[in-house]
């Protein structure tokens, strides 16, 4: 699959990146080469293969009990940066 400058603009918008017009062609050609390379996976028949999301080896504990535990640093988060000042979002469209 060849990636066009328009594809780059579309994906950049999804990724919240402000790619300038001057960069789109170069990125399109670099990404095209990479995508053409990864398309070698098409050679493999994977119809009957389950996907692997993560190799969580034996003994992983995804959950802990629902108890409050004292945690390092949570009170310092705000202190370090002087609270989080965010841009105004109400009243925009």
């Amino acid at each position, binding site marked *: 699959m060849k990636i066009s400058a328009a*594809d780059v603009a579309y994906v950049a918008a999804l990724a*919240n990146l402000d*790619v300038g017009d001057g960069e789109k062609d170069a*990125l399109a050609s670099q990404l095209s080469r990479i*995508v053409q390379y990864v398309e070698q996976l098409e050679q493999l028949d994977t119809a009957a293969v389950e*996907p692997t999301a993560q190799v969580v080896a034996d003994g992983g504990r995804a959950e802990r009990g629902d108890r409050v535990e004292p945690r390092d640093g949570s009170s310092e988060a705000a202190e370090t*940066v002087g609270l989080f000042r965010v841009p105004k979002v109400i009243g925009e469209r």
Partner: protein
Amino acid sequence: MSPKPATIAELARDYREGRARASDVIARTMDAIERSEPGLNAFVSTRRDKAMDEARAADAAFDEGRPVGTLAGIPIAVKDNMHIRGEPTTCASRILENYVPPYHSTAVDRLRSAGAIVVGKTNMDEFAMGSSTENSAFSPTRNPRDPERVPGGSSGGSAAAVAAGLVPAALGSDTGGSIRQPASFCGVVGLKPTYGRVSRYGLVAFGSSLDQIGPLTGSVADTARILQAIAGFDPLDSTSADVPAPDWIRELDAPVQGTKVGVPKEYFADGMDAGVAERVRAGIDRLEGLGCRIEELSLPHTEFAVATYYLICTAEASSNLARYDGVRYGLRAGGDTLQSMYRRTRMAGFGPEVKRRILLGTYALSAGYYDAYYLKAQKVRTLILEDFRKAFERVDLLVTPTTPTPAFRIGENIDDPLAMYLNDIFTTTCNLAGLPGVSVPCGRIGRLPVGMQLIGKHFDEGAVLRAAHHFEQAGGFDG
């Protein structure tokens, strides 16, 4: 070449016997870093005052005969993507240039609990994305063996700091080879432990199903010492494994006679540097001389590993890096709307390779392409895992080159992302399969070190380190 720097074991013995003082060692270390930095650029930041305070506290403990940790007074460097509470973590990115984490990473916290003294944070490819440390927002690190060459990456600063003899050990992180490849390029030992062996809490996330923290050191025994300190279950990382950590240091000297070592033929394919192949072949002969039983075998999906890896790691990265939006992490560019603020901040804060990977990952996850790219890669990941499972029914270890070439020149691959990615051809498989792998020096081509990779079964770092230790002790392969 300067005399071989002290190992952790030597320093610890000198402290114990009163022949060295931590405050002298740390002061000398900080001076040496200051002298070498302008050329080497291995460090993003150093912490002389804090390290000196910690060294004086260590001296006091030794003087008063109080119990000290296994790493008391040992100078250590830490890749700048792991947190020390209240001190900057930059990930070598403009977007985190002013970020100060409010918590410790578990791995660094455990090192410091064992008495280690962090002397500074090391340079890296931005967000650990790269194989040369040229993608740092704070200039490239040079290879101490040849300053015209890259140290490898992404943990290039950590490898260079150890290779230059500035510290006996450093922490790195490895998502697709980022510990083993720079270890190979700089002639040091580098271990990527089993996925889940070392907590990732407080490590800035890149590819969460692949990332793992590990040591870079001057010797295999020192790698075992660092692993011993940082390994183990951590409730703060949901992928941390609750499995016992054996005494790796004690087990190093157990015999290797009869260990079955597989040589996957796909790792000796065309296109590899002839000098690298020759030295790794000689290394395999040396393993045979030590009593290992060598057997050729096949891991048929190896050629698909780089493609699989670059789809999965970029997809995970695009998701992980979505959080850097200008709201919480320091850098914020102005914008008329919230959306434009996000976009301008991310445009100003991320370097070219990070943007490329975010775009590729977003593309692979986007509607209409998810099945063809991301899901396909997850399925091929299963096939790669299956190759290893079958191989490990027959053998205890696998041996391969760490990289297809020795260290390349600064600038050589920077305009060709795909050529840079192909450097990871022998290292990404361990991450995809979650296996432990070590790179150990196995000779040189001129001044340039060559690394040999040993790969083990899940949680069998013991066998990996033991074979690497015997190999190193057999001698003649000084990085």
